[in-house]
């Protein structure tokens, strides 16, 4: 049952991911990315990380991709059709890197690097909101606060860059 659901969502995720690259209209690509993000949320739920799934939809799909869509609609990049590559060697290098990554993925999957069982650093019942909250505010307090500081720097930078010189 779980395998069937996983295969279904994986199929949708892969098709949506391919759609992001292959669709011609950038807004259609953004929509395909939304579908991909929603399947990721489904995977998080299947792994018992409900809070992460909710945050994935709320922040990523509802916030980040919304801003992508805004920028695409306002700036309309990529209106020209047809390849205008100046670096002729881009395509073979891309193939090479792609194949290398695929080989690396295969090596990681088919040797015993990923065991699929919780390791000795993961506590029991991990994934629920209480556990996540406890860990975030005790063991991982410094990364949490520093990350929020990073976001604040980003926001201030954006405001400064966007200000018009009066």
């Amino acid at each position: 049952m779980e395998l069937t659901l996983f295969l279904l969502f994986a199929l949708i995720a892969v098709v949506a991911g391919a759609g992001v690259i292959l669709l011609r209209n950038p807004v259609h690509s953004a929509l395909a990315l939304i579908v991909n993000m929603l399947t990721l949320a489904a995977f998080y739920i299947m792994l018992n990380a409900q809070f992460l799934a909710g945050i994935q939809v709320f922040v990523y799909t509802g916030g980040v991709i919304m801003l992508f869509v805004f920028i695409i609609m306002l700036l309309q990049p990529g209106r020209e059709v047809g390849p205008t590559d100046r670096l002729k060697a881009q395509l073979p290098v891309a193939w090479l890197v792609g194949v290398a990554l695929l080989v690396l993925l295969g090596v990681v999957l088919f040797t015993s690097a990923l065991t699929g069982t919780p390791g000795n650093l993961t506590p029991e019942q991990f994934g629920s909101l209480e556990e996540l909250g406890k860990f975030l505010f005790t063991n991982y307090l410094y990364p949490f606060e520093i990350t929020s500081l990073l976001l604040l720097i980003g926001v201030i930078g954006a405001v400064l860059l966007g200000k018009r010189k009066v």
Partner: protein
Amino acid sequence: MIDVVIEAAIKSLIVIVALLGAFAYLVLIERWIQARIQVRWGPNRVGPLGLFQPIADAIKAIMKEDVIPDQADKVIFVLAPGIALSTSLLAFAVIPLGEPMELFGRTIHLSIANPDIGVLYWLAIAGLGVYGVVLAGWSSGNKYSFLGSLRSTAQLISYELALGLSLIGVILLAGSLNLPQIVSAQGRVWFVLPQFFGWAIFFVASLAETNRLPFDLPEAETELIAGYHLEYSSIKWALFQMAEYINIITINAIGVSLFWGGYQSPFFFLQGSPLWFLGVPSPLWFLGKLGVFIFVFMWIRATLPRLRYDQLMRFGWQFLLPLAILNVVVTSFVLSVM
């Protein structure tokens, strides 16, 4: 396993039919209320007291010619009202209508879904609902629709912040994101009393989130003709109206569940007395409170003037958001000290 799916399917069917029926008559009730406030009669010709007006409107909407503009992006043009309506309907899934009841030997919870992250689920789906608006305006191929949808989207994502932050006070008090638990935690004291400013912020933000007056510049007829649903005719326009009214119902249901005690009765102290039936929590209390707040939404629409767009954005970012953050800080401080 399969019985869980069947139970959810039956509940979903009942809720969807109820919501669509409620939408139809809510439009009529709104027209009546607006009319009476403007000292005139509302629709009272079609059927007894005008009660068949929604049926006439539905037939008109279906029979109209369905126009897709030449410059429109056809796929997204057709998808956008679908996204708007489906997210509106999905958002209602977590609202608890009453206490769990026993039926056919099973305990049935009176909400379609009961995830541990109830409030976060609702916020996430409300965030997805914004896509219906922005895609509708862009795909119409019309500058005015596009401008209207951009304004509406900017308003929606700005007020989403204040909306979410105003709920944090309630979540801190209840200690959980799970909606039935939050409603149960209000057995004695409804959260509007300790969190009055939280509720006020939530109420104003919910007016903005549903594009209702005084925040309805994106739909203002005098400014942008009709905003993002300008190029939509026939059944697709009706779908947008459905999405808007179901959003109103859902957001008020969330407000009632989180601040005004949901299905809890205000007369809980009568529970041992001869008038015990007034103190029992029931879906009727929930529906009554929901009705009151929807009436307040309609009352405000008929009474207040519209905010200009820059006034609206300034209010959301420079007043409501700092107030919501202050609410969170004060609530956490008081809770940590006590």
